[in-house]
């Protein structure tokens, strides 16, 4: 019971922290850790199908998508400032 409460508390703290961080990279990493803890919570709720899907789809694929979008935005930023200098 205390383990469950600790994990649930972590979920709330992580969810709040995501929106207090200014840097987007921090927010995405905290969101990925949130998903990992959520997949542990699915195991405690006796739903292993959900745990494996959450770990693979939500953590892996969502996290990778957010990362690649951030990288792309950064690359566009660099190109834009290059244009302004010229």
């Amino acid at each position: 019971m205390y383990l469950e409460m600790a994990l649930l508390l972590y979920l709330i703290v992580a969810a709040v922290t995501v929106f207090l961080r200014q840097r987007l990279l921090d927010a995405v990493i905290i969101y990925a850790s949130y998903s990992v803890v959520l997949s542990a919570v699915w195991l405690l709720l006796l739903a292993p199908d959900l745990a494996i899907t959450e770990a693979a789809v939500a953590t892996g694929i969502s996290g990778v998508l957010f990362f690649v979008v951030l990288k792309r935005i950064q690359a566009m930023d660099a190109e834009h400032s290059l244009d302004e200098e010229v």
Partner: protein
Amino acid sequence: MNLFSLSAWRHRLLRYYPLVALSLTVGITALLLVTLAALPPLGEVGNPSHNLVSLKYIEDGLGDTGALNIVAGMILDYRAFDTFGEACVLFTATCAIIILLRSDTPDAYDTMLHQMEEPHTNIILQSVSFLLVGIMLVFGCYVIANGHLSPGGGFSGGSILGAALILYVNSYGIRRASHFINFTIYRRLVSFSLLFYAAFKGYSFFMGANHLPSGIPLGKPGDLLSAGLILPLNIAVGCVVAGTVYAIYVLFSQGEMR
């Protein structure tokens, strides 16, 4: 009519937007918490959510579908048409992303991408992925193939396969990866999987029954080759998910898929 041009009073109203939004959120949360007080305690057998529907799935699931994993039997046999719609949503999302990310005029960003694309010479990434990609592919196939016996199935196994492909692309470059997966192969794989699924489960849309025997013997529960159509459907869903995941990653990082 200009949609975005705000008149002065609307500007003044917009100043209170954060306050209104915050009070709305707090109000909704408080309302939900009040509703919570009327719920029965967690995890009791007699709770109203554990009604006839779940009992039917649990009691008849093994006999009807032949799958040890009741959830897999439920989503791929009783409610297979629902899962078909889900696979179609994935396919539609990929189509929409292809349309959205298409650059009408190739700009400086695209040319920069093509220049920095090759060659990949990160020795640490390459040796780690040399070890990992094979294991991940085998594990993904295992999860898909055992979907009716153990937790897992098409969605999780397919995204593990997709993750392995993403790792391969990241370490060896898109050019080497396009030998075994490119847009043509992706299109054929996903279309064939969806058509296969539609051909074998679309009939329930017309017959209106929740469970019809497929004609394939169910086999001995617990064997790999059992549970009738669930294994082929799992493989089809896994192909769709793996292809979609890989395609979305390539579209985001490259802008297009060749």
